[in-house]
Structures are given as C-alpha cells and as structure tokens.
C-alpha cells in the first residue's frame, strides 16, 4: 500500500514467470452423515496470474462459495478437501500449518463478503476495525497503525476520511460499508483478493463504483482479484478471464470476451440466453415475450450420475454424455471447455 510503484514492478516481473495461484485437481465434499459425502467441487483446476482479474460465474449451488472457502481454509467443519493442491506464491495452502495459514489469510490473501453489515462489528468504529487488521498482522506501534489506517481510508474515501473513520457501520451506506471491507482486505497489501458476491446487495450505481474500486486496486497495486458472482453482466466490463462453474465442475474457462460472446459450453450459452437483452426496451414488440430458460434445476449433487452433470438439462446432449464425464479440451490456446461436443 505504501510503495505501489516498486510493488507493481516486482509483481509484473513475477507474473511473467509464474502464476500467483495455481489450483490443481481440487475435490471438496461435505460429509452429510457418517460415510455419506456430497461432492461440492470436483476436479477443479485453474490459475490466477499476478494482477489478473478472474471472474467465477456460477448459480447458487454451483459451489462458488465453497471454492472461495477452500482457498482460505475456511470450510465449515463438515467440509473436507479430498484431493488436489492450491499453490499460492509457491506454497501449498492445503499442506500449510494452521498458524502459517493464519499469517497468509488477511495479509497475502483477503476475502470480501457479500453482506458488509454481517462482516462488520456493530458497536465498533469502522476505523478501529480496519486497525484491527494491522494489529493482527503487523506488529507496529499504535501511532503508526493509526497513520496507516488513515492512508488506506484516504485512498477509498478521498473527501470524508475523518467522518467515515469515526462512524459506526449503521451510520454508513451500503456502498460505504463495502468500501470499509475493501479497506480491511487491502490493508496489509495482499497479492490476491477474493470477492464472494461483493456487490450483490448494492444498487447498480453503487455497484459500478465498487467495481471501479476493484479496477483501481489492480491498476495501482497490482492486486489479483477473484470475483465470484452469479451475474454475468458484472464480469463483462471487468474480468480478464472467466471461469464458469456448474455443479462444482469447470464448464469452461477462457478470456472474458470469448467466454461471454462465443461461449462453447451449452450451459454458458443457455445461461446467457436467459438475460433479457438491453435492446429489448427500445422495441415495444419485444416486451413481455417469453424469455428462454434452462429446463429443470441444479439438484441432488449427491446423486451418482456417471455422465456430464449438465446432461439432463442440455439441449445438445448425445451418446457419450450419459455414460462418462467429459474431460477438459483446449478449444483454443486460452479457452478450455469440458464438453464432448469439442472432442474427448
């Protein structure tokens, strides 16, 4: 945070050589009863480069929050990582001691939640809550901590730093609270910020402001961002690459432009067709016409299906889809898809 120029150059050099985060063959399951497990994440692999914004697109139940929680070691007690590795800055987070993980979490990787009112302490001034992050990770004296808090908040609230800092969460608007969460997240200058639906509770104007804060984080500090959302239109303007998650599996992953405009996976295609087009409003004849939707719903992850998870709802299904799971196919240099349509 204090020395962005040096950090950025270092990070850019770093990014040329390796990925910041490498998730390989991750399997996560929830134990429901003794010996009954329901898999939430299956064989998920992806990379995040330094300074990159990766959008993770998935509907409720697709496993996107589980994915975020497993990267931070924050799975609930019955959540178990069964296989795979998560390499972050060269270290495998899944092998790290709890103490080591604690020093990484909040300092090198930070999480921003959907509901800022739940994430903030109601009877503590927000400035003090940002200061807690420094207190937990950097053993500096009170005076310099306060100075750092002022700097971080000044970056996010250029005009009203003092008023915001001494406010309680309930005195702030939704957008202001979300900025406080961002302040906590970036306080220690993390390399990676994970946003789990960080703008879902905000109105569009505030949403836009928060997204531009994210853009600024990447531009000014070289922070990599994993932005988890169910709303494809948020990703269009912001993400470099998009990962589409369906029933805990990667449906496809590739550059934003090609995933959203030239989707390969039938699920992504059907999902994007569900959105009413912004052009609808300009033509009265298109009003109230039936929107395409995906038949059926994402249910019973525990069911033992041998084939592709999207097969029952897929309009393009054919012979092999029922009998085995598709493997990842490189459609182009950058675009990977898991669907038999593109070979197996």
């Amino acid at each position: 945070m204090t020395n962005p120029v040096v950090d950025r150059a270092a990070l850019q050099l770093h990014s040329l050589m390796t990925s910041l985060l490498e998730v390989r063959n991750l399997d996560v399951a929830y134990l429901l009863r003794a010996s009954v497990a329901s898999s939430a994440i299956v064989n998920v692999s992806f990379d995040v480069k330094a300074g990159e914004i990766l959008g993770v697109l998935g509907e409720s139940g697709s496993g996107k929050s589980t994915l975020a929680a497993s990267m931070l070691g924050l799975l609930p007690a019955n959540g178990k990582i069964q296989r795979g590795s998560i390499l972050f800055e060269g270290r495998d987070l899944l092998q790290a001691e709890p103490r080591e993980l604690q020093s990484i979490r909040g300092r090198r990787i930070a999480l921003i939640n959907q509901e800022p009112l739940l994430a903030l302490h109601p009877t503590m001034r927000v400035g003090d809550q940002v200061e807690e992050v420094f207190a937990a990770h950097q053993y500096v004296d009170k005076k310099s901590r306060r100075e750092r808090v002022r700097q971080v908040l000044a970056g996010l609230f250029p005009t009203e730093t003092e008023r915001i800092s001494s406010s309680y969460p309930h005195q702030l608007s939704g957008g202001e609270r979300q900025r406080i969460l961002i302040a906590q997240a970036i306080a220690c200058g993390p390399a990676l910020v994970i946003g789990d639906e960080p703008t879902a509770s905000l109105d569009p104007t505030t949403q836009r402001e928060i997204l531009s804060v994210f853009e600024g984080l990447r531009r000014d500090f070289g922070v990599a961002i994993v932005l988890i959302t169910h709303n494809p239109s948020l990703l269009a303007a912001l993400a470099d690459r998009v990962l589409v998650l369906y029933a805990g599996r990667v449906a496809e992953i590739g550059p934003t432009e090609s995933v959203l405009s030239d989707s390969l996976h039938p699920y992504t295609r059907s999902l994007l067709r569900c959105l009413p087009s912004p052009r609808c409003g300009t033509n009265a004849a298109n009003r109230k016409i039936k929107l395409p939707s995906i038949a059926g719903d994402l249910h019973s992850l525990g069911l033992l299906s041998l084939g592709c998870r999207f097969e029952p709802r897929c309009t393009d299904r054919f012979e092999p889809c029922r009998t085995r799971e598709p493997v990842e196919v490189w459609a182009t240099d950058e675009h990977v898809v898991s669907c038999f349509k593109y070979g197996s």
Partner: protein
Amino acid sequence: MQPLIQVESLRKLYRSGKGLNSGHVVPAINEVSFSIAPGITLALVGESGSGKTTLALCLACFERPTSGRIWFGGRDIAALEEKQLRVVRPQIQLVFQDPASSLNPRLTAHEIVTEPLLLQRNWQERQMRERGFALLERVGLSREVATCRARELSGGQRQRLVIARALSLEPKLLILDEALSALDCSTQAQIANLLVELQTSSALTFLFITHDLVMAAHLADEIAVMNRGQIVEQGVPEKLLASPQHEATRSLIAGMPRAIVRPHMSGAC
C-alpha cells in the same frame, strides 16, 4: 379507462434519530402523484434510498402516509380506519425480495398458500384443500411440492410459493418489491415468464419495483423513475430509454449492463 389505483400528492415524512436527536424530519416520499390502469405493469425504478419501498408500503396500507390521497376502488384508502382496511388489504398484495425470510419455516407449502384463506372463515375443509393445490399449480409448482417446507425448496420454487400465497385472496394489485433481484439469472427468467403468464390469464395489475432497468423495460408497460422521494420522469420504456430527460434516469441508463451477448445468441431480441 378508469385507473385501478390513483395516487395524489402523497407524502411520507420520517423523523430521524431518537431521544435528544429527534426532530429532524426526512421526507421519504414527497408530493408523488401517479396512476396505474388495470391490467398493466408499472415499473418503479431508482437507486436505493429513493423511496421506492416506502411508496410500496404506503400503497399496501402498511404505512400511513403523512398527507395525500390513494384512490382505490372508489375510496381514499389513505384515510380509512384500520377496521375498514381489512377489506382493502386482501386486494393489494406484496411480494418481497427474499423468499426465504417471507415464508414460515414450520409450515408446508400447502399450508402456506391456504393460510390467508383461514382469515376469511367461510371456506370448507375440502374446498380449501382443492384451492391450495390449484394455487400451487397456477404458479407452476407440482403436487409433490405441497408437503415440502420452505428449506426443502430452491430459490425459484420459494419465490413461486410466495407469489401463490399473494394470489390466494385474488388481489387486484400485486406489488413486487425487488422480487427478482435475489434470484439467479436462469431463475429470474422463469419467474419473469410466470409473471407475464399470470398477467395475461388473470388481468392482474403489477407494480414492479426494481433497480434492474433491463428487466423493467422487459416487463413493464410504463416506467416511473424515482429520485429523492419524487417521481422525476415517467413514460413508456422505449421513449424513456431513448430520450431520458432527467439526470437520475440518465445515471440509471449509464448503469445498465452493456449487451454482452452477440445477436445470434441473444434469446429475447
């Protein structure tokens, strides 16, 4: 045509702060006038805090307006006594954003949709059973769902259930306060389709409150833009979007997502 509901210079003031701080008066809605013709959808759009929900609560008789009139069924419902409101309330129903918190977790789907009927007292056991199944069917829920409790249902099914309950007393006006906002986009499309079907089959009137201008343009016959407690602009979607007059409208339009899907893939247009 005679409007179904007509609002004249409605104001609702809230007193801010408590104790020593009180006395500061904030107008949540200020001199709002509009009307909705029967069988159409009026979308009310605006940023958070612009007064959309307060307006909805006043129309549904949950909040008493500070001044102004709300004409509905030939009466000014803003001036009615609590007792007289019992006749009006069933005709104006509300659907909120979060279906999970609108449903009693201990009741089955069938009990939830028939609960309002209990208040009418003149229903026989068998009639009520049939009516419950009919309501579920009307919103596209199968008979198997009837015995499920809310937690066993998906987000889309829950919102269907909330809509079924709202329809149980055959309201004339349905107020949908961000009813699609918490849903995934494929579920949003399903519920949007349901709303259109219901309107076509039963000539329902909707007040559709949202901050999603794209969905508003898709579903509404007319859009009203709220800003700081006032309706600053109102018109048919294509006109409002093509030539917005007020700054608030322009700002909302700037926030619309760009078309992310190429024409050959776009479903609706």
